C-alpha cells in the first residue's frame, strides 16, 4: 500500500502553491515580507534559507492558511497539506500510534481506515515496533519521525516544513534528511522547507531560495542540478561545496 495514488513523477500544469507579490505587515507595523513571488509544483522541493527574523516562517504560515497575507495573492491548489512544526508537537498522553492517528481522527476518518494509514506511515518513517511507546520514551529524532508520520497520514500533496530538524544533533539530522529524501522520491509531493542550514537546503532541494533580512524578500533562487534519488556522498563533492558556497555568499549579501 502506498500513501499516494502514484509514485511516478507527475507532470503538473499548475503549481500547487503560488505566491504572487505577497506582503505581510503585522498589526504592530512590522513589515515581515515584501514582494514575494514563489511557486512550488508537485515533484519540486524548495528550501528557503535566510537570516533569523526574515519572515521565513511567516511565509509558511501564510502557505498553510494559519495567517493571511496583507497584500498580494497566495494561491493553494490542494487541500491535502502536511505541516511539520519546529517541535514535534506530539501529545504526551498519546502513544506513537495514537499520535500518528490524530490528524485522521480530527478529519473524521473511520477507525479501521486511520489504523491502517497510521501503520503504513509508521512503517515508512522506520518506527515499526515503537507503536505503543509514549513520546517521553523517545529520542528527539524519533519524536520528529513520529511527527513526520502523523503528517504522512494525510497523503499530503503539499508538504510544509518549518525548520523541523533545527533542534536535532548532526548525526540525527543527516539521517532524517536521507529519510525525507527517500519519502520525497517515493511520493513526489511538493515540498517547501524552511531551514537555516545552507548545506541541508542544498542537499534536500531541487531549488533553494535565499531571502534577505527584514523585510524579507527573495534575493536569489538557485536550481540544484543533482539528480534524485541523491547519493549521501554527494555532500563531499566539489560541485556540492561550490553550490553551498554560492548560496552562503548570496545569503551574506542579502543580510548586509
Amino acid at each position, binding site marked *: 500500500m502506498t500513501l499516494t495514488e502514484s509514485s511516478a513523477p507527475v507532470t503538473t500544469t499548475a503549481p500547487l502553491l503560488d505566491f504572487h507579490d505577497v506582503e505581510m505587515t503585522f498589526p504592530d507595523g512590522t513589515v515581515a515580507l515584501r514582494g514575494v513571488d514563489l511557486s512550488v509544483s508537485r515533484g519540486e522541493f524548495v528550501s528557503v534559507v535566510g537570516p533569523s527574523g526574515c519572515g521565513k516562517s511567516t511565509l509558511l504560515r501564510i502557505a*498553510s*492558511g*494559519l495567517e493571511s497575507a496583507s497584500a498580494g495573492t497566495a494561491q493553494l491548489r490542494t487541500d491535502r*497539506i502536511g*505541516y511539520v*512544526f*519546529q*517541535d514535534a*508537537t506530539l*501529545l*504526551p*498522553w498519546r502513544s506513537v500510534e495514537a499520535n500518528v492517528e*490524530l*490528524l485522521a*481522527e*480530527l*478529519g473524521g476518518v473511520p477507525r479501521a481506515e486511520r489504523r491502517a494509514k497510521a501503520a503504513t506511515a509508521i512503517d515508512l518513517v*522506520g518506527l515499526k*515496533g*515503537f507503536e505503543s511507546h*509514549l*513520546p*517521553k*520514551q*523517545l*529520542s*528527539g*529524532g*524519533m519524536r520528529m*519521525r513520529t511527527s513526520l508520520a502523523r503528517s504522512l497520514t494525510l497523503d499530503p500533496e503539499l508538504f510544509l516544513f518549518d525548520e523541523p530538524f533545527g533542534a*536535532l*544533533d548532526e*548525526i*540525527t539530522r543527516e*539521517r*532524517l534528511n536521507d529519510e525525507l529524501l527517500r519519502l520525497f522520491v517515493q511520493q513526489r509531493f511538493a515540498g517547501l522547507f524552511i531551514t537555516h542550514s545552507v548545506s541541508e537546503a542544498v542537499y534536500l532541494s531541487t531549488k533553494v531560495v535565499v531571502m534577505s533580512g527584514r523585510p524579507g524578500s527573495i534575493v536569489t533562487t538557485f536550481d540544484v542540478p543533482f539528480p534524485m534519488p541523491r547519493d549521501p556522498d554527494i555532500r563531499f563533492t566539489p560541485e556540492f561545496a561550490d553550490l553551498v558556497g554560492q548560496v552562503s555568499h548570496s545569503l551574506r549579501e542579502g543580510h548586509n
Partner: protein
Amino acid sequence: MADIADSTGIATQAGSAEASRRGGRETRIRRSSRSLQWWQPLAVFVVLIGLWYGAAAYYASQQLAFLVPYPHLVLTSMFADPLFTPQLLVDLGNSAVVALTGLSLAIVIGVAWAVLMSQAKWVERSLYPYAVILQCIPILALVPLIGALFGYEFLSRVIVTVMISIFPMVSNTLFGLQSADRGQRELFQLQGAGRWTRLTKLQFPAALPSIFVGLRTAAGLSVIGAIVGDQFFQRGTPGLGVLIQVSTSRLNGPGTFAAIITASLLGVVVFLLFGLLGKLAVGKWYDFG
C-alpha cells in the same frame, strides 16, 4: 527516561532501547533510595512521641493532665473507649460526608468555571477576579450571613467547604487548560478542529496533571472546610469540629486529642488518596509528584 534518551541523541532503535534500559536502572536506584528516606520521618515520629510523654508527665504532675494527655490514653479514646470511640466514628463519617460533598461540588463548579474562562479571553477577564475575591473573603465575616440564609445545618457546612476548597480547582484547571503549546493548538486549527474537539482532545487531557494537583490541594482544604463549618453551624449531624469543641469544654483531654488527630488523619488520607488517583490517571506520561 526522556532526558537520557535525549542526551544520547541517537535516533537508532538500538540506541534508544539501550537508553531505556539504562533509564530503567536509574529509576530502580532512585526508588530504593526513596524507601530509605522512610526511616527519617519515622525517627522524628519516635522523638516526638518521646517529647509528648515528657510533656504529659509534666502536666500530670501539675494536676493539669487534660491539657496534654498521655499518648496511650489518646489511642484508647480513638480505638477502644466504649463511651467515646463510637461517637468519634459517627462524627468522622459526618465530617467525611461534608468534606466529600463540598469537594465534589468544588470540582464540578471549579472545572466548569475554568472551562468557561478558557473559551475566551474576555470571559476570563470578566470571571477570574471573582475567583480571587472568593479566595480572599474571610469566611468568618460571612458566617452570620450564610447561617441566616441557609440555616445552621448540613447545607451551610457544605457551602463553607466549597468556598474554602474551590480556588485551587479553578486556578489549576485554568492553568492546565491553557498549557497546550502554540504548535499543538495550531495543529488542531490546521485540521479545522472545532472548540469542542479542541477542548476534549487537546486542552482537557493537557490539563489533567494540574487538575489533579488542584484536586489534591482542594481535597486537603475540604477537610478543613468541614471542620471549620462544624464550629459555626452545629445543628443536625455535625462532625469532628463539634466533637473537638465539646471534648474541650468537658476537659476531656484524650477525647480532644483523639478528635484532632482523627481530623488530621482524614485530611492526610484524602490528600494521599487524590495524589494516588492523580498518579494513576496521568503518571504514565507525566511525572506526578
